[in-house]
């Protein structure tokens, strides 16, 4: 089975990146420097308009190739400088799943949806068939293959969007608020699918999300952006325990907020329900 080789070396390197949309007066990104290792599960969050989506668009070349605008600094993804490579070429390295699956899906059946990108790569039919089956199976949507993407639920649509991106066998999967229109149970299930892709295939994940309650135990690294810059980063425990995360308007998990608001909190951060139960049983 195909698996991204897991080794600790940066797969994304961003150096001094600044970007201004055409016609905009203000920079959307200012002097961003960031390196992401192969196999990381990174959650990118921040208030709306902080530059999260813009940063993602730089990683698959939509910026500058599609949006234009003024870009400074370098973005290197899988050893390709995005400035010098076409979106189609980058799409084989970086899969992108959008906020609203309706904007991404267009084919008459789930199968057609998944093979479309593969046919465009002019892969041999056997390979296409194989990848189709693999993607359907990995995401657990084999039963949906004949269905129209328009008559399935939002959660299922997002899975189809992920499967169609996965079939391209990218090394990096970027998901821009993929759960924003899903109900909580569907969101939780989708996060589990994403976590599985990260753990079993070693796929590098960049997830833009506000729903940190459900993610805090799945992600390795949380990055908080504000006003076009990176402000706080670290593992979820470190990030959520810094008060500045709260000041920046981040939806830190309620359990952590409860901890922060206690009259005499224990020294060690209570990060999960289990932490809380353990603490209260001990005292």
């Amino acid at each position, binding site marked *: 089975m195909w698996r991204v080789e897991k080794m600790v070396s940066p797969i994304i390197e961003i150096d001094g990146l600044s970007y201004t949309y055409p016609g905009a007066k203000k920079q959307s990104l200012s002097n961003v420097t960031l390196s992401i290792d192969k196999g990381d599960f990174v959650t990118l969050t921040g208030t709306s*308009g902080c530059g999260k989506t813009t940063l993602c668009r730089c990683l698959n070349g939509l910026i500058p190739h599609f949006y234009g605008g003024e870009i400074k600094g370098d973005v290197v993804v899988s050893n390709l400088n995005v400035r010098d490579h076409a979106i189609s070429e980058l799409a084989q390295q970086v899969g992108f799943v959008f906020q609203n699956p309706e904007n991404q899906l267009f084919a008459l059946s789930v199968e057609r949806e998944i093979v479309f990108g593969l046919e465009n790569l002019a892969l041999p039919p056997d390979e296409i068939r194989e990848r189709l089956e693999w993607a359907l199976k990995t995401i657990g949507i084999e039963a949906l293959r004949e269905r129209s993407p328009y008559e399935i639920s939002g959660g299922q649509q997002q899975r189809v969007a992920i499967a169609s991106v996965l079939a391209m066998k990218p090394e990096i999967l970027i998901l821009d*608020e993929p759960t924003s229109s899903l109900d909580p*149970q569907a969101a939780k299930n989708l996060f589990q699918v994403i976590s599985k892709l990260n753990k079993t295939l070693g796929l590098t994940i960049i997830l833009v999300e506000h729903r940190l309650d459900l993610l805090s135990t799945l992600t390795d690294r949380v990055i908080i952006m504000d006003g076009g810059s990176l402000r706080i980063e670290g593992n979820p425990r470190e990030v959520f325990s810094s008060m500045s995360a709260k000041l920046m308007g981040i939806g830190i998990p309620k*359990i952590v*907020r409860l901890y922060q608001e206690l*009259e005499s909190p224990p020294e060690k951060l209570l990060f999960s329900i289990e932490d809380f*139960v353990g603490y209260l049983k001990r005292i």
Partner: protein
Amino acid sequence: MIKVENVSFTYPSGVNALKSVSIEISDGEFVAIMGENGAGKTTLVKQFNGLLKPGEGDVYVDGRNTRDLSVAELSKDVGLVFQNADHQLFCETVEDEIAFGLRNFGFSNRVNKKRVKWALTLLDLQEYRKISPFMLSGGERKRVALASVLAWKPRVIILDEPTVGQDQSQKERLLQFVRQLNTQGNTVILVTHDIEFVAECDPRVVLMSHGRIVADGPAKKILTNPKLIKKTSLILPQITQLFFKLADLGFPKDVISICEAKKLINDFVARRS
């Protein structure tokens, strides 16, 4: 204020979205309509401002049957903010967008100006006054859509998934002014599956599933019922999950908000030490 009697509704595609639904919402109530995607929540609230008319049964707004009224007439009293702002926005600037509804309702220019300014300030949109709504982020566009409805001050305000794409600080602001609208006497109806948001504002919760209302009562009672929550694809509030696990230490199970939780735990810690 709003009375729905045995309403059934089937879309032309054949989807039977409402199955004999009855509900009454009084003046000044604060209601959250919750349930899984496709439960019929949006279909139900579209009956309130006449966007959809019942297939069977009747809907009354202030005693008037919605069958006899146009959407324009009903909208003056019942403002609906759509889930997807893009279905609602079309003007060239944010300011025009907000002024559009006002002009249609025939407000004078002077009132118009004042209301636009008020709505821009309320939703923190002043700096975007002159730019196209389509240049804005998803969360910002949602705020424009909300501002454009609030501007004509309908008595009933329906917000369809207002927290989607909003960050925490905007959610907190939203929570504040939803409460404010409610204390000023407006009827506020939220359609949402953001259970953590609802847990903090403690409204009356109407739970829908497969086109029917399956539960109706105070948030504290509904959101802490694991069976109902599971049935409707929701998840128990984090705080409730915690208190379920604390039951053997003598804590109550029906806790949903941080505020309550904090008090209970502080008292417990004080007693123990």
